Structures are given as structure tokens and as C-alpha cells.
């Protein structure tokens, strides 16, 4: 799985593509925590290109969200496919994330906030 | 399930507590007829009867037959909505006389005498 990072003044956009499962979950969590240490607190994670996510991948997102929320930041997600949505729904974690049609819309929401 | 009995003149009032399902119906089939032998006219106070399944209803019908056999009757009082639905579903409400309060059920014996 690849990660592209793009930063603008209000938030960092991470675009993931491929299979977001337990084997890569650890590295994602580290990437985000490094960014947090460099005082980036608002994130948009674009899932449009993620074909599969398991509880490992989900766990890393939940952990990162908890860390970011401690610094009054937020993580917004965009365009999860049916497969990925199902994992959020079944684990009821869809209630703690905000979902947007695409990453630009999610980024804009940080501006107006 | 637990039943306590009290009798005034010719009518026995049986207060039934808990649930009439599982093994309770067999208990009822043994216990109630003994009471019916003494006084065939019986009022079943169902205020504390939470739930009854069809096994329980079957047992009640068996006891009814014994009561009617001895020129008596079993009249139900204060049944809750679930029991009422079960009885309507199985048309058992056409077989039993059902009263809203125990008092009505008891007085129904005094003026009507036994089963109409």
C-alpha cells in the first residue's frame, strides 16, 4: 500500500491506495504520529483508492484520531468504498468520523471551521 | 411460577405469580385440579402473571375441563396485554370468561351461579 502526503496551511491530506490491513496499519500509525509531533493536528485521509480495510487498519485510524483529538485536532475521511464503509458500520466507528465525498471538500471544511 | 390460594364461601381465588411456560404448565395441571376438587368455582388472579405460552394455555384448558366437569368454572381476572393477545390469537378468549378485576370475577359467580 502507498501513502501520498500533501500539506496546505490548514491540514495534511494523506491519500492511501491499495489494501489497508494489519500488515501496513503500524506504519500508517507511525507516519501520522510523526506528523502530530511536528504539530500538524488536522488531517484528511482520502480512502477513495483503498480497496480493502480490516480491523487492523481501522484500529490505526481510531488510535490516530484519539491522539489528534487530544490536541484539539481532527481526522476527516473521504470516499470510502462499500467494502470499507461496511467495516466502519459494523464496528460502529462511523459515528466518530466525518465522511466527505472527496478530499478537497474535507479540506475546505477545516477552513470554515 | 407460584400460586397462592384463598377461598371465600364457594369461590377460590388463585393468585398466579411469574411465568406460565417451560415446566410450569405441568405443575399447574397437578396443582389446580386438587383445588378444583374442593371448590370447583375458581377465579385466577393474573395480575402477577407476566407471560404465558401455549403450553400454559393448554394446561389451563385441561383444568377448565375438570372444573366444568364438576359443574364449576375457571374465570380469569386482570390478564396483561401479552396474555390477552395469546388468548385472542387462539380463540381461547371465547372459551374463558375474562374479567378486568378479581372483584368482578368473584361477583360473577355469586349472581350467575355456575357456568351459564
Amino acid at each position, binding site marked *: 500500500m502507498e501513502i501520498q502526503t500533501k500539506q496546505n496551511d490548514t491540514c495534511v491530506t494523506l491519500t492511501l491506495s491499495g489494501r489497508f490491513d494489519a500488515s501496513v496499519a503500524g506504519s500508517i500509525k507511525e507516519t501520522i504520529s510523526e506528523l502530530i509531533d511536528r504539530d500538524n493536528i488536522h488531517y484528511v485521509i482520502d480512502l477513495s483508492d483503498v480497496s480493502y480495510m480490516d480491523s487492523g487498519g481501522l484500529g490505526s485510524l481510531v488510535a490516530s484520531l484519539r491522539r489528534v483529538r487530544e490536541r484539539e485536532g481532527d481526522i476527516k475521511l473521504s470516499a470510502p468504498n462499500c467494502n470499507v464503509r461496511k*467495516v466502519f458500520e459494523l464496528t460502529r466507528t462511523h459515528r466518530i468520523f466525518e465522511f466527505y465525498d472527496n478530499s478537497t471538500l474535507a479540506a475546505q471544511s477545516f477552513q470554515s471551521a | 411460577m407460584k400460586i397462592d390460594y384463598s377461598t371465600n364461601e364457594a369461590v377460590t381465588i388463585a393468585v398466579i405469580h411469574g411465568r406460565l411456560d417451560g415446566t410450569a404448565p405441568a405443575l399447574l395441571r397437578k396443582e389446580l385440579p386438587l383445588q378444583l376438587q374442593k371448590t370447583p368455582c375458581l377465579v385466577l388472579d393474573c395480575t402477577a402473571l407476566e407471560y404465558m405460552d401455549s403450553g400454559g394455555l393448554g394446561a389451563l384448558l385441561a383444568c377448565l375441563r375438570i372444573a366444568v366437569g364438576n359443574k364449576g368454572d375457571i374465570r380469569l381476572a386482570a390478564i396483561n396485554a401479552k396474555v390477552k393477545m395469546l388468548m385472542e390469537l387462539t380463540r381461547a378468549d371465547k372459551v374463558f370468561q375474562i374479567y378486568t378485576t378479581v372483584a368482578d370475577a368473584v361477583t360473577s359467580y355469586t349472581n350467575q351461579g355456575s357456568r351459564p
Partner: protein
Amino acid sequence: MEQLELKIPATLEQAQLGAIAAANIAAAYYRIVTGQDPGKDNAFINAVELAVGEACTNSVKHCCSQCPEECRLTVCFELEDRKLMVMIKDCNAPFPFDQAPVPDFEAVPESGYGLYLIEQTMDEVHYLHQDGQNILTLIKTIKDGKAKCSQ
């Protein structure tokens, strides 16, 4: 339908292989049984992929031996008219399958969703520990052609 068996080294990267294989085998069986192309987001295939992926990840995570590469995880697939059965066998210590707690959703835990997801996506899940092996059996039935959700 005879059994298809897959032996995977017990590492996280290889566990991913289990999930991908499961998805493709499920797709193949789906075509055989319904005679139709499963299409993009097929509920049956997605469910099998997720459940087998979780099961493989769990068993790899709890792999007992110090050198996981030697330790092997077996995944076998079997189709019985419309029921796909997937058995995941490993040599780990037995685990209390039926006391596995349902996640406390209010607390939003960061892990422990695996077994719950398996049970939610599969029609039947059975676990037994036999002659030194954990055997987790996942069963999913291929519904009629349109893979409609059963009300």
C-alpha cells in the same frame, strides 16, 4: 467439490495473501454456483475476504513460535452445493472462542474487533481445538444471483 488447501507462513504480510486468495476463490465459486459474474462490490465476496483476512491476521498475531517464518498457517476451502466453508488451522495455543467479548462500542476500542467482524459477516462460525490444532470454520451461503441482503 474437493478441498483446496493453502499453506501460508505466519507473518502479517503473508496473512494478507490468505485474504486475497479467499476473495478470488470465493469469486470463482460464485461464478460456478450462480453462473453469473459477481460484479464489482459483491457482498458475498467482500464478506469472505474480510472474514478470512481477520482470521488469518488473528492466528498470525498469536503465533507461538519465536521464528514465525517456519510456523505454517493452513487455509482450506470447500464448496458444498451453495455453502462455502473455509477452515483456518494453526498450531497456536487454544483460545476461549465462546468467551470472546463483544467490543464495547461506546469506549471505541482500538482493537479486538476481529472476531466480532467475522461473526457479523459469516453465516456460521465454529471453533474447535483438536490434536494440537486450532480449527476455525467459517461458512457463508451464496444467496440467489443478486446477492440481495436477506431481510
